[in-house]
């Protein structure tokens, strides 16, 4: 009897579960379901558009669908709300095991009055907008001249870098040329912790040196350098990034907690921070991007265990562990989940045959976007690349489905 497994969410964690399971049980029938017509989740919509090297991990996932017999079931929403195509219970009735790998997408809020005002944006929404995610195209953020980025992780640095870069700096990326931000002249990045406790990686700071016309400054001393790679990177970058002709000034501030927005006519005009010893700092600005992570308060996470919710139901990735950790960290975790599923599978009684993917195909037919359909979208996007870009992403589900329809009509 073939064991049938559905993974919900075609992002990196879901794909790594499929990869690992496929290695242990090559005969298992594995399908990855996604509500979007396109696979790869955060690799496509979260990894910055100018980090194509990081996105190259997609080659591993493509191989799942091309050579390892995993199927892609796109454009199908599983859930318990009204907009869903089918419920979790229905899906579980069709498969021996279901893995939830849907990630987390809500930005964590600062919780300050004025956060809803114009000009205040969450980094997740901004990043998805920049990455052409169909759900966030109405955002159209306006940054003005002066931007304050709140947060000290790698996402905050992604935001800073994309704000600071000019058109030529995006060569080889898939960043829409029409979206290059040219208005910004001053960027402040403000972290709550002292510099040595900031969460970003040294390489992310060093990368800023390459941006033409960017002057990097430090507001105040960094404290004891010792051999902290990040502090050294900050100091070296500030020294090296001092261009002859400055287009944008980036200033790092450490040890300042956000205290209050100043809102006039429903627009942000400054943000005030407080230091641990009670000093206050007000930065006038046209916009604020909060990059303090994703909302992890809505439910409890399973943590670093093997991801069992109950027999036959598992979870992986950020949905399981909370919104933390890089691609490789989640890969290791996904391997652990796959190992557990593989062990449990051995105990599934013979004769209890589930219909698997065939049931989804019977019920949803042409609505399902297959891997071959995705390849048509993929090649349409590559063909639509502007000069100096590797891809021009389709920004709406309608446009994606039109390409799918065109492919099917041609057959």
């Amino acid at each position, binding site marked *: 009897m073939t064991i049938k497994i559905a993974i919900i969410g075609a992002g990196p964690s879901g794909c790594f579960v499929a*990869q690992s399971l496929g290695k242990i049980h090559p005969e298992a029938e594995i399908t990855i379901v996604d509500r979007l017509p396109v696979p790869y989740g955060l690799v496509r919509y979260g990894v910055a558009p100018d980090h*194509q090297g*990081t996105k190259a*991990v997609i*080659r591993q996932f493509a191989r799942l669908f091309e050579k390892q017999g995993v199927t892609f079931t796109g454009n199908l929403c599983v859930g318990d709300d009204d907009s869903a195509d089918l419920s979790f219970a229905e899906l579980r009735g069709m498969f021996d095991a279901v893995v939830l790998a849907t990630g987390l997408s809500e930005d964590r809020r600062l919780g300050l009055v004025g956060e809803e005002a114009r000009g205040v944006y969450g980094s997740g929404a901004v990043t998805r907008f920049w990455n052409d995610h169909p759900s966030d195209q109405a955002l159209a953020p306006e940054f003005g001249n002066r931007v304050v980025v709140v947060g000290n992780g790698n996402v905050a640095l992604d935001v800073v870098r994309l704000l600071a870069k000019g058109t030529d700096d995006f060569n080889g990326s898939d960043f829409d040329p029409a979206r290059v931000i040219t208005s910004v002249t001053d960027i402040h990045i403000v972290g709550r912790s002292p510099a040595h406790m900031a969460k970003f*990686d040294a*390489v992310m700071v060093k990368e800023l040196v390459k941006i033409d016309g960017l002057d990097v400054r430090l507001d105040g001393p960094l404290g004891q350098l010792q051999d902290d790679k990040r502090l050294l990177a900050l100091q070296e970058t500030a020294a090296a990034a001092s261009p002859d002709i400055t287009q944008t000034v980036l200033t790092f501030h450490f040890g300042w907690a956000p205290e209050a927005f100043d809102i006039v006519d429903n627009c942000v005009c400054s943000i005030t921070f407080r230091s641990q010893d009670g000093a206050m700092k007000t930065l006038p600005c046209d916009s604020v991007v909060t990059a303090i992570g994703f909302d992890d308060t809505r439910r409890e996470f399973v943590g670093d265990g093997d991801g069992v919710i109950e027999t036959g139901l598992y979870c992986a990735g950020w949905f399981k562990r909370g919104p933390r950790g890089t691609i490789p960290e989640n890969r290791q975790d996904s391997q652990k989940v796959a190992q557990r599923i593989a062990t449990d599978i051995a105990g599934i009684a013979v004769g209890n045959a589930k219909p698997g993917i065939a049931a989804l195909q019977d019920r949803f037919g042409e609505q399902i976007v297959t891997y071959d359909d995705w390849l048509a979208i993929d090649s349409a996007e590559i063909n639509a690349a502007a000069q100096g870009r590797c891809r021009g992403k389709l920004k709406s589900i309608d446009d994606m489905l039109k390409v799918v329809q065109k492919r099917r009509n041609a057959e």
Partner: protein
Amino acid sequence: MKINLLYGTETGNAEMLCEDIQASLADEHEVTLTNLEDAALANLTAEGAYIFVCSTYGDGDLPASAIDFGAMIEAEKPDLSAMTFSIFGLGDMDYEETYNNGSQRLLDLLIGCGGTQHGPRGLHDASSGKPPEDSALPWVKACLATLPA
């Protein structure tokens, strides 16, 4: 010929490349594939040619699956004077300053213990958008073709 193929990986890209290399050589050679995470010193004194594939992670560091191996080589300084090896690195020019430092570190460690490098270090840039196997497979063939008998 016996070929020992060893890889250090963080995201799985180097592992997949090695599976491709193994598949491309399997008809003509006897290839063993080992993750450096599982490699013991005994794996470095086997008969045959050695090919290492290694990525770079963090601030120009060895990838996760090669870190303990690197530490072991450094601590135990095994005599690798009988070993002839070739090495291929996976890197990302978006991080120019530390580009392919992981494979260079592994190369330095092996040479430091008396290993002899054969052929140039192969390099792949992930930000190029080109598949690593396109450059790695010809590189492997060229290395093997010029190996002294």
